Each structure stands twice: as structure tokens, then as C-alpha cells.
């Protein structure tokens, strides 16, 4: 009777309480053999068999297996086991081919031919160009609000067509050099043509490494190995996802041998068990950006000297130690440390209170008073706010910390206030810019509106040569580093606990990337 759109609460990128990423790689990462096995060294030869039980925080009784609704970490992990995307993100958040075996743009970068690999759905039917178009049209349905809809916006789906069984011609609304990122977008999974909404809960059919066995929303989902998987059958016989929202419950279940894999642990838990031999702690570095967002369109932050002063007020290591219990690395006021196109040539910003004071004086902002919005919406937010308040006091700035509602925080801070706690999960730098830093970006929390900056972005998107494109992204990041609105103070680890028998868990892929929460390459020793 009622149309329901996608997406449940607790956004995927800001999911419940943690930060981060994990990746599982066994023999060979993704589908090329050159992949580094650095993270999973000494794990020995994969063994076939067994059931792995993995505990995630979930969405309770309203969970579904519809991959286009995937919004929580648990949803994505389940979707990843049952379904495939055309592409997915590698460790540096660059798009890696998956169901697509390749892509070729025209000279104008606004028409892309995507070739599909030979792959079958669980019911034996091949994955065809029509399935791809059906899936994308479903996601883009104007009546619904699937999360990936915004990512697919550049595609003109009416004009796009199937050239043959295994070739799709995508017609774009404008040149998009980073189009493969669209194919890898969160939730852009390929489902069989004509799948109806009701099919997903009862008998979801995908092309992923595991087949559906059973599902009870908010409790458990059981999947079995897909012997015919195009990327090689998984080592595990069975995979079970269980839902435990309390971190303590996940840890206890892991310690008590009730699960073999616990997602999203606290740094304090990790410290208590690291190296004790009872369980393995896996830390995925650089997984979640931690920042303060300054609104650049209103006082006091409409003066770039004030923004720079704030950059210099932050003692980043103290924030990491205090707010993240040491589980992270310092940031340099730029998104995406370690990702493709990251401007790593810029000097690391350090605390410099004298210079901060003199900048504030020049800006006529001595005795400055600012309200910092925060909320318990993500781990470390309230702690970070308190620490920054004390640091600012040393530079003569009075920061008043204001606690906001957890459930509407992200909507509240979008337009109101001047300074707030912010964080983001991993995504390509290009997506970060297009979603948050262009004049017409829908979630522009720093109110960064600069026509010349927009122009640079569009220039990058119509630049075919990768080196030239990297140079444009570098220019944009230099600008943000000098006077942007994001004070990126750190990148948090994503922490996972596994039983000692679990092998092949990749340790270098950030959350949201292909090898994170990927169970077809792990095995039980």
C-alpha cells in the first residue's frame, strides 16, 4: 500500500559508531594477480570448508536484502556477498573492474562503452547488458530515493542502450573522466532484469560469490558458496551474518567463540586484546576522515585568516590520542590521505599558537567566541569537541560546545551553525569534491562556493590524460589546504576482531573499498 524508498537511518559513511575499513584478500587481490599480499602474509595455503559467522551492527527488523537499499555496513557486506557491481574501489579508491571487464570512452568523454565479463547469476542466466540497464534504471527511479541515485545522475539512462549482449553504451549528460567511479558507486549493484521488490527478501538472485540460503531481518543471514563464481569459488562453505548492535556484545560473542569475525570495535577494546593471543585485531588505516567543518560564507569564517588561524590552533596528535584513543594518524586539512590524487606533497600542518593569535589579530577577531556543534552521532565527536575547546582557549578563542540530536545531526549542521564536528568514510577524492565542495553540491557543509573552483573540477572531468587530470586535482587541493573550510585533523583506523583461525583478511583496504568486508577470499585454518 505504501511506497517506501531506500535508505535507512545511520548513513553508511557515517555508520553508527566507528570509522573505517577492512579488507579481505586471500590469494591475489581483486582480479589481477599483481595485487599485493603484504597484509595477509604468513597466512599459509587457503583451506576449503567451514562456516564463518560475522557479527555486524545492523538495522534491526527493518533490514532488507535489496542491494540498492544498502546503507549500513551490514547491508553492504551482505550485498557484496550476493551481488556484484560493474566496478569497485581498490585500496587507493580508484575504480577496479569487476563485472565490467573494461571501459572505453569516446574523445569527448561523454559516451562510454562498457564491456561485461562472462558471468552468471545464481539461477544460471548470464549477466547481460539489459540487466545492467534494468538495475541502473531501478536505482534512478524518480519515485524512489535509493542511495546510489545521486551517483548515477551523470548518466542519461534514456539515451543509453545495450549494443549487444555484453556491451553497454552509456550516454552521459556531460564529460566525465572519472566515470568508472560511477560504476563503483555505493549501492550500484547489478540485479537480474525484471526483479521485483518482493524478490529480494524471499529469494535474492545475484551474481556474487555466495548464494542465498536464509534471512531473518535483524538477526541472521545465511549464504552458501557459489561454485560457479566468475572470480573463483569462495573457500568458505557457508557464511552467516549475525546482527549485534552493542559493541560489547560483538566482542563477547567473538571471545566466547560464538562468531569468528566482529566488525567495528572500539580502540579501547582493541588495546585490551591486541597481542594477547586470544583474538586477532585488524586495524585498517586511513579509513575515516575526522574534521571540523567551518562555514566559509558567514562570520567569523568568511575571513580566510580566521580559517587559517583555526588550522594552526589544532594539535592534531592530541586530538588523535584523546578523541580516538590513539587509533589513527594525523590529517593535513585534506580529504583522502593515501588515495588516488591525494596531494601528499604539502607540508604537514603543525600547531602554531603565536601565528594563530597574530592572524586573528589581523582579522580583528581577538576575543573571538564560536559555537562548536557536536553530537554523539559518531565515535570521538564529543571528545574531539572538548579537546579542541581547550586548545582554542590557549589562542584566546572561546569555543562553546553545543550538543545536538544524534538522529538529525547531519541534516542540522548542513545549513545552520558556523563550526561543527564532521567525518566521512572513504570515497574517491573526486566524489568528495563533487558532493561537498561545488557550488551546486547537495551536501556542502562548509558552504564552499567558488565558481573558479567549480571550473577546475569540470576541467578535470573533461581532461582525458591522467597526469594532466592529477595536476588539476592537485591545484584544487592546494587551494583547500590554504583556505578551505575543512580542518581535517585525522584519519581514524577501522578496527575488526577475528578469531585466530580466520585467515586471508586484507589489512590495507579502507572501509567502503572492494576488499573490506569481503568474505570470498578468507578461509578458516
Amino acid at each position, binding site marked *: *500500500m*505504501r*511506497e*517506501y*524508498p531506500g*535508505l*535507512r*537511518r*545511520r*548513513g*553508511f*559513511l*557515517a555508520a553508527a559508531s566507528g570509522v573505517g575499513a577492512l579488507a579481505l584478500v586471500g590469494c591475489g587481490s581483486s582480479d589481477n594477480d599483481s595485487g599485493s599480499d603484504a597484509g595477509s602474509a604468513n597466512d599459509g595455503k587457503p583451506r576449503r570448508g567451514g562456516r564463518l*559467522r560475522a*557479527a555486524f551492527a545492523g*538495522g*534491526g*527488523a*527493518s*533490514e*532488507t536484502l535489496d542491494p540498492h537499499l544498502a*546503507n549500513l555496513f551490514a547491508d553492504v557486506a551482505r550485498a557484496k556477498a550476493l551481488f556484484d557491481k560493474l566496478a569497485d574501489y581498490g585500496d587507493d579508491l580508484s575504480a577496479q573492474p569487476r563485472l565490467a571487464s573494461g571501459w572505453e570512452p569516446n574523445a569527448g568523454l561523454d559516451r562510454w562503452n562498457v564491456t561485461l565479463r562472462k558471468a552468471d547469476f545464481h539461477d544460471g542466466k548470464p549477466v547481460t547488458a539489459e540487466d545492467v540497464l534494468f538495475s541502473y534504471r531501478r536505482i534512478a527511479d524518480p*519515485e*524512489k*530515493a535509493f*542511495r546510489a*541515485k*545521486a551517483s548515477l545522475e551523470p548518466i542519461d539512462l534514456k539515451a543509453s542502450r545495450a549494443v549487444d549482449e555484453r556491451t553497454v553504451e552509456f550516454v552521459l549528460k556531460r564529460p566525465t573522466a572519472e566515470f568508472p567511479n560511477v560504476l563503483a558507486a555505493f549501492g550500484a549493484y547489478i540485479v537480474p532484469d525484471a526483479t521485483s521488490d518482493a524478490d529480494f527478501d524471499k529469494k535474492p538472485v545475484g551474481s556474487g560469490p555466495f548464494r542465498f540460503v536464509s534471512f*531473518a*531481518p*535483524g*538477526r*541472521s543471514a545465511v549464504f552458501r558458496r557459489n561454485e560457479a563464481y566468475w572470480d573463483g569459488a569462495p573457500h568458505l562453505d557457508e557464511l*552467516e551474518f*549475525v*546482527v*549485534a*548492535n*552493542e559493541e*560489547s*556484545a560483538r566482542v*563477547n*560473542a567473538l*571471545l*566466547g567463540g*560464538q*562468531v569468528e569475525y566482529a566488525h567495528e570495535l572500539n580502540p579501547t577494546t582493541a588495546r585490551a586484546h591486541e597481542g594477547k593471543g586470544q583474538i586477532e585485531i585488524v586495524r585498517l588505516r586511513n579509513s575515516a576522515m575526522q574534521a571540523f567543518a567551518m562555514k566559509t560564507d558567514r562570520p567569523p569564517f568568511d575571513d580566510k585568516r580566521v580559517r587559517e588561524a583555526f588550522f594552526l590552533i589544532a594539535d592534531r596528535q592530541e586530538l588523535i590520542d584523546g578523541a580516538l584513543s590513539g587509533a589513527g594518524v594525523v590529517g593535513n586539512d585534506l580529504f583522502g590521505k593515501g588515495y588516488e590524487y591525494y596531494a601528499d606533497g604539502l607540508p604537514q600542518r603543525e600547531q602554531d599558537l603565536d601565528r594563530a593569535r597574530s592572524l586573528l589579530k589581523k582579522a580583528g577577531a581577538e576575543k573571538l567566541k564560536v559555537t562548536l556543534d557536536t553530537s554523539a552521532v559518531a565515535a570521538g565527536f564529543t571528545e574531539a569537541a572538548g579537546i579542541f575547546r581547550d586548545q582554542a582557549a590557549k589562542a584566546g578563542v572561546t569555543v562553546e560546545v553545543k550538543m545536538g*540530536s*544524534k*538522529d*538529525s545531526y*547531519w*541534516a*542540522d549542521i*548542513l545549513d545552520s551553525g558556523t563550526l561543527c564536528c564532521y567525518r*566521512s568514510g572513504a570515497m574517491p577524492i573526486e566524489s568528495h569534491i563533487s558532493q561537498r565542495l561545488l557550488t551546486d553540491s*547537495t*551536501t556542502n557543509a562548509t558552504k564552499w562556493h567558488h565558481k573558479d573552483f567549480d571550473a577546475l573540477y569540470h576541467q578535470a572531468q573533461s581532461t582525458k590524460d591522467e597526469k594532466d587530470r592529477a595536476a588539476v586535482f592537485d591545484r584544487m587541493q592546494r587551494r583547500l589546504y590554504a583556505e578551505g573550510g575543512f580542518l581535517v585533523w585525522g584519519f581514524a583506523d577501522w578496527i575488526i576482531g577475528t578469531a585466530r583461525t580466520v585467515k586471508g583478511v586484507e589489512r590495507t583496504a579502507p572501509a567502503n573499498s572492494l576488499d573490506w568486508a569481503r568474505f570470498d577470499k578468507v578461509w578458516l585454518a
Partner: protein
Amino acid sequence: MSGLGSWAARRLLLGGAQTVAVVVLVFALTEALPGDAAVALAGDQPDPARIAAIREALDLDRPAYERLADWATGLLHADFGHSLTSGRPVSSYISDAFGPTLLLAGLTVALLVPVGVGLGVLAARYEGRFVDRLISSVTLGVYAVPEFAFGVLLVTVFALRLDWLPPTAVGYGTDLLGHPAALVLPVLVLLSRPVCSLSRLVRAGMIDALASPYVAHARRYGIPGARVRYAHALPNAMAPAAQQLARTVDWLLCGVIVVEALFVIPGLGTVLMNAVAERDVPVVQGLAVVFGVITVVLNLGADLVAHRFAPRAEVAA
């Protein structure tokens, strides 16, 4: 007994009104929370256009009174409506989650009555002596420990250190009877505080009753001590205890959230918590109706029991 009948009917009517009031109040309060389901659903992607689209798809753009009226009309046909977030019927949420919570509550009550009453009687019998002081100090002490802390303590000792019991019920879903060991710790945590309050009430009631003129009179007739205690004094002590018990059952059904979260039991508490966080108003309302009805019925039952045991106490509605 006809007086009792009309009294019960009046109580039922009142209870119905109370339930309606609870539902309206819950609706008003959920409306008053900052943000709605659309905002909660959008999470960290608060794209205004998307929020507007979700709002429209969920009918949230209609005025509040219309939505309440629609929902109440459905309720008259036993239709609890559909969840805003999953589209599944609310009745399936309730029926799925009712089992585990009922099982926990049932087991707890089944153990609570003998243990609570037994300890209370025992303490009253040895009033002021060692047994009484031991029971009193232990019950006071345990009562002071919050459930969460007590649960963590029990898990650490009995599940993780001694390895006697499973630490959680994760993966068992609603089939808890198939894994009875997983029930031990949750029931212990649930029992801990009600046992204390119940036994202290029974003790106090017993001591009062034992000191009362009618007990003294019964003793003068030479009626044996045990019979005086159990047939004459205990029923009087039971009146306040029965009401306390009813309140405890309310608490068990509505307030096992902590235990369910700690031990990963997919019951009503878990559903309620998720629904509130998601601003899933139809689910919250459905649960409010269920909890309201249970509370009314239980209190009515408790008052009837009190009426029966101690008619002179003039138990008021």
C-alpha cells in the same frame, strides 16, 4: 462478587481510555522529536532534495492529524500499518519480537515469585537475626547495581573466564528454547533487581502482619506457627507484592532493552529502540498500543489479586 464485576468493568473502560491517551501522547512526542523519518533515513547524506523525496514517498508531507487519523482507523480493523523504513507490516515486527521478550519475562516471573517471596518470608521469620541481616544487606547491595554493569560482570565471570555459559544469544534468533544455556545470564540479570524489591516488600508486609492483632489472636487460639505465617500473614503481605509484581512485569516487557542489547536477543526492546532511532512512527505506535494494553491488563489483574487477598485494604483503582 457482582460489585467486583462492575468494578472490573469500570477499570477496563478506564484502561481503554488510558491506552488511547498513551497512543496519542506517543504520537505527539514522536512528532516533537527533532527531525522526522526522512531526516533520520537520510543519515549523513542530508541532500535536501532527497529528504523531500523521502518525505513525499512516506506521506510525511501530510498534516500530522491526518496521519494519526489514518493510523487509528486502521487500528480499528486490527491493521497496525506499515513500517516507514522497510514497508513491512508492523504486526509482523511485533509478532516476531514478542516471543523472545515473553519467554524472558515469563521465565523471570516464574522464578521471581518463589525466590522473592521465599526470601522475604525467610527474612521476616528471622527478623533482626543473622539470616535477616544477610538477606537484607545482599538484596540492598544487588539492588544498587545497574543491570548493565551486573550483566557485564556476569558475562565476564561466567562466560568469558569460567566458560560455563555462552556470552550472548547471537545467531540463535528467536529460537532461544533450543539454546537454554543462553537464557541463564539474561534471566539472572532480569531477576536481580525485582527479586530484591519483591523480597523486601514481602518481608515488610510479613513483619507488619505478624505483629498485627489478628495474628496475635490466631496464635492465642494455638494455631501452628507455619499456618499462621502462610495462611494468615502471607496473604496480607501479598497485596502490595502483587502490585509490585505487576509493575515488574510491565518493566520486564517494556524495559528489557538493556538485557536484549547486551545479550543480542531480538525482542520488543530492540525493536522499540531501532524504531525510535529511525523515527519509524507506525512501529513505535504499534508497540505503544501493545505495551499500553499489557500494562492495563496486568494492573487490573494485580488489583484483582490484591482485592482477593486483602479486601479490607480497599485497593483503589
